[in-house]
């Protein structure tokens, strides 16, 4: 084309006109798309398209989830102090000695109240694993407790068939949802010891969760109620713009 009879200056002007116009249309279309996306009605405190992509990302990555994929474990020399972060749901007046876990098995009318000795009766598991906050920081912490999987097997094995676990503080101020696969993961523990000490109040005494397959805000402190559901239960931070799945 270059050395044909076409006047290069004229050809240049023609191509420039056409292409710069396309680029301009593209830019306007891009801005229009962005304006449209962010103006959609909110779902869980996010414009719905962003919420749906978060959910889609969660579905995609949960289909790649393998029970055998474990977070790294560390030597005791790597243990760090965990700064307390958030006290929502920790302010009920019950003394720790009077604490009971309200346990509601899946599709059951039977409601059980469990004590800390009921939990401690299960095989103890210790795990030195990195707690990862969604804010972007992490700490290596030693957790002592029982596998959530062992707990369900002992007290309500049929509950493994539920799709979700819902866990809430005694006052129901804080609540998290976990998909059952994550809850039954080998590194999901009901924790009563932290860094070699009994769990203290700011970290959720007498019983909290730790899971290596979710961000820290899913590792709920001061557990009051555990129940199961086939429909997605409420999740405190997912109602405030965060990812419902929040998987790691």
């Amino acid at each position, binding site marked *: 084309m270059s050395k044909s009879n076409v006047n290069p200056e004229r050809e240049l002007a023609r*191509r420039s006109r056409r292409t*710069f116009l396309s680029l301009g249309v593209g830019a306007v279309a*891009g801005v229009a798309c962005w304006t449209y996306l962010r103006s959609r009605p909110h779902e869980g405190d996010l414009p719905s398209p962003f919420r749906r*992509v*978060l959910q889609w990302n969660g579905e995609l990555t949960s289909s790649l989830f393998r029970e055998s994929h474990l977070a*790294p474990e560390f030597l005791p020399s790597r243990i760090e102090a965990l700064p307390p972060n958030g006290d929502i749901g920790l302010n009920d007046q019950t003394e720790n000695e009077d604490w009971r876990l309200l346990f509601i098995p899946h599709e059951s009318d039977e409601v059980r109240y469990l004590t800390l000795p009921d939990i401690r009766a299960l095989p103890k598991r210790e795990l030195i694993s990195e707690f990862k*906050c969604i804010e*972007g920081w992490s700490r290596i912490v030693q957790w002592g407790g029982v596998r959530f999987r062992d707990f369900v097997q002992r007290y309500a094995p049929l509950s493994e068939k539920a799709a979700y676990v819902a866990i809430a503080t005694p006052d129901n101020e804080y609540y998290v949802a976990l998909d059952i696969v994550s809850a039954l993961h080998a590194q999901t523990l009901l924790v009563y010891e932290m860094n070699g000490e009994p769990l203290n109040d700011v970290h959720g005494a007498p019983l909290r969760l730790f899971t290596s397959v979710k961000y820290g805000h899913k590792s709920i402190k001061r557990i009051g109620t555990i129940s199961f559901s086939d429909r997605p239960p409420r999740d405190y931070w997912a109602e405030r713009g965060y990812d419902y799945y929040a998987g*790691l």
Partner: protein
Amino acid sequence: MTTHLKEKHTLITRWAHWINFPVLGMMIWSGLLIYWANDVYRIGIARWTLFHFFPDWVYDAFGLDHQLAYGMSIHFFFMWLFAINGVIYFVFTLLSGAWRELLPTWQSPREAVHVIVYELGLRKTLPPQDKYNSAQKIAYTAIVLMGLGSLVTGIAIYRPTQVAWLTSLVGGYRPARFLHFLFMLGFVCFFLIHIVQVIRAGWNNFRSMVIGAELVVEQEAVQHE
């Protein structure tokens, strides 16, 4: 003296370039919304800090504070566009053979110094070059590798338990986040230099990135007559 149009950039290169510009912009902006929630990086020794990433006025000036959740939702939306666009560009560049014009050679580092000295006005001549000079080859290859690096470190932070092997490979969870941040700084530095160089190279060069061809003035044709 005659002029003619010389094809310079393929359609796919140009599409990938102009899509990447706003998409990477969105990734950096939403990334900063996320970074704000734990802005620990700084240049300094022990307790002495030369520069903190970032001073409060930066967050104030660009409105980057208190939007972690929103930032994450945008980051995990545009990551798909960034990754898909990048993969298309990468595969096309590999298969079309265009990588040959981009890949630095063993002479490139030395020649690149030469080019930089020339650009600073301290030298009158340039080393002979093909489509891109040695400094460009290094910069344009580096930016592709940085894109790849931000993708890999991004995945390593995104699902560190599921891809624990990858997270370990890039040094662990915290180093992965730090590297991800460094790549972002790299993109910003590249962008600033790129803008200056594009302005200096002039309109004909800029236009070729849009329309694909540039106007070449042929003086040899005159000499042969």
